[in-house]
């Protein structure tokens, strides 16, 4: 997917003015986030489970090569194929070549964010292989020619009317009813024949179990199950950070993932696939391929400050809790991963300078860190990225701060660390600002500070600052005490 991170401000402004998208984003909050909060209270040992989840992830990421090797060995000894792809292009080429070789004509896809990074559907279409998204939200945006705006509910920005039109165009006739029930039924009817006939099913991977060589797919719709049961070839695509050590870890991870993502105790379906079907089984795929994708993740792995972003289990809880995401929506972030986690990893995966607005799209309120099931410290990483952008500590070209900004910050630092300078600056400041103030408030500051007063007023520095009032009070106290002493003696 071609990143559009540089368009953050423009897309955000547009989204803020769109009442339909704002309604969708409110639904994200009231359904998913409120649901997650309820589970956090209702689930026994919730905090402990999150701590353990984080510990397992930390251990796995610290030994990633070991666990990926174990995973690959086990997939292969189960009769599956493994391909390690350095980047999107390599992954696409492997899959297109393999599909053409196996005479694949039609493909059904379940949700896979990594495949969005790859732009896989487009590559397949160019090779003449029809590819259909089956996750209802992904299907809707495929019909609309758009990209997902949320990790879990990709079409949350679309209204029922818009969806009815999209499905109607596809069906060749408009549906009379626009109710979610009837539209869902319509989509089911449209997609069902494809499940039966497709040659290849592509899924993402929620967890890959190193110990057994299994991949685990979590859905509510059942498209994951149909996609791994009906076609003759099953392809699972994963980011390389998705591996966990043991099948027993799944109990914990499924619990914290699903409760954090949607507020459900568990999803309708959890499917653990271990290799292709055995020869005496009545249905199931003949071939299983696991594509393990890097695509910039080794940069995150090599970075001690940002490495913990690889603990992410893609639940979307940080998006749902974020007051900024809830206003600007997923498309503003310009890449596959929106919201707080997107703001951290996207600049590293696609370019820090182009993505410079993303680390600043945050109030650092910490709601994301609170909501994260593996306790990733996103605000710390956002601050770290901001300082890289300000001082160019990663590469000189990343520095975005201008000379004026650096001069102003130097003056600020001097003023804040020197008491006499600070007091003098306050007095001078008051003297300078008095003419533009009215009744102790400044409605409009001069540039480069004018942005500050766009939506609020700035108070005039007081004639007698608090430190002065304090000193005066102390003197009064002192006099009182000496009076008191004289009287009581």
């Amino acid at each position: 997917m071609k990143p559009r991170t540089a368009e953050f401000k423009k897309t955000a402004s547009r989204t803020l003015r769109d009442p339909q998208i704002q309604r969708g984003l409110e639904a994200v909050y009231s359904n998913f986030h409120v649901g997650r909060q309820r589970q956090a209270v209702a689930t026994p040992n919730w905090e402990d489970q999150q701590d353990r989840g984080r510990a397992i992830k930390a251990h796995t990421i610290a030994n990633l090569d070991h666990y990926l090797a174990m995973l690959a060995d086990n997939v292969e000894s189960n009769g599956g194929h493994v391909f390690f792809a350095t980047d999107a292009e390599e992954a696409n080429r492997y899959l297109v070549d393999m599909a053409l070789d196996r005479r694949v004509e039609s493909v059904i896809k379940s949700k896979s964010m990594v495949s969005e990074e790859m732009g896989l559907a487009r590559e397949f279409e160019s090779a003449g292989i029809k590819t259909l998204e089956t996750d209802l939200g992904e299907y809707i945006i495929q019909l609309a020619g758009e990209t997902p705006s949320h990790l879990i509910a990709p079409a949350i920005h679309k209204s029922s009317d818009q969806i009815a039109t999209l499905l109607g165009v596809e069906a060749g006739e408009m549906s009379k009813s626009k109710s979610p029930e009837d539209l869902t039924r319509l989509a089911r009817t449209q997609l069902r024949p494809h499940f039966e006939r497709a040659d290849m099913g592509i899924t993402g991977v929620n967890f890959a179990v190193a110990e057994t060589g299994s991949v685990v797919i979590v859905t509510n719709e059942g498209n994951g199950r149909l996609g791994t049961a009906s076609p003759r070839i099953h392809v699972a695509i994963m980011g390389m950070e998705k591996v966990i050590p043991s099948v027993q870890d799944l109990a914990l991870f499924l619990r914290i993932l699903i409760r954090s993502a949607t507020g459900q105790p568990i999803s309708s379906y959890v499917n653990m696939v271990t290799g292709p079907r055995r020869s005496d089984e009545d249905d199931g795929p003949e071939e299983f391929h696991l594509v393990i994708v890097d695509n910039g993740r080794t940069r995150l792995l090599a970075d001690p400050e940002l490495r913990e972003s690889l603990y992410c289990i893609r639940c979307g809880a940080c998006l749902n809790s974020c007051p900024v995401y809830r206003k600007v929506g997923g498309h503003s972030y310009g890449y596959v991963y929106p919201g707080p986690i997107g703001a951290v990893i996207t600049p590293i995966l696609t370019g820090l300078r182009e993505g410079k607005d993303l680390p600043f799209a945050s109030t650092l309120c910490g709601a994301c860190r609170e909501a994260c099931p593996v306790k990733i410290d996103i605000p710390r990483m956002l601050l770290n990225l901001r300082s890289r952008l300000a001082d160019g500590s990663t590469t000189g070209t990343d520095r975005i701060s201008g000379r004026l900004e650096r001069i102003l910050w130097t003056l600020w630092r001097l003023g804040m660390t020197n008491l006499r300078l600070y007091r003098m600056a306050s007095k001078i400041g008051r003297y300078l600002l008095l003419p533009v103030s009215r009744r102790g408030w400044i409605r409009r500051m001069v540039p480069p500070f004018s942005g500050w007063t766009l939506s609020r007023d700035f108070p005039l520095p007081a004639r007698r600052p608090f430190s002065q009032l304090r000193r005066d009070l102390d003197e009064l106290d002192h006099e009182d005490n000496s009076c008191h002493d004289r009287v009581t003696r």
Partner: protein
Amino acid sequence: MIEITAAKVLEEAQRKSKALFDELASSASTMGWNVHRTVFPDQAAGILLDICQSANISTALYSNHPVFCRVPAIATLVSNGIVASLAETAGDRSRAELKAAEFSSDLGITGVEWAIAETGTIVLHARNGVPRLVSVAPERHIALVELGQVLSSLEDLFLIERLEHMSGRLSTSVNLVSGPSKTGDIGGKIVEGIHGPLEVHMILIG
């Protein structure tokens, strides 16, 4: 070590079987299962027939689970005019024919490997005689759960699955099913019945 813990888990599943049945009935109901309960296997067959007749089922596929030896479900359906056949590729039915049958049947009926009281879940293992599609392709699925098959938590289940793996018996497709298929992708409103079954029934027997 793991064998000892697994033995404890299995022993508890037997010892607390009634209480676990109660817990499962409650959690499954919350997750959207239609839960039915009876002590007698014959009555289970009757319940199955009622469900089929209410839903106008004309064709059904069932799996080769041991529960069908104890519950005369299939005989009951067949004698009431419902075409019920075993979902397998033995004899003259090819894989292609089985798949076509799985996509065109009104109903899939299975036993279960396990159920999980914590989450209202049944666990299915694909193997010879238990195809993947029979529980997910038809519009309706009925699962028969017997007393003693209910585990307490996800931890218990995955401990057992780990033991299966260590004994070389891990199924190629392990499925945890916890209700009907659903989506919230249209307007954030939850709708049941997309892709997977729109109606699921659990009959607790024992």
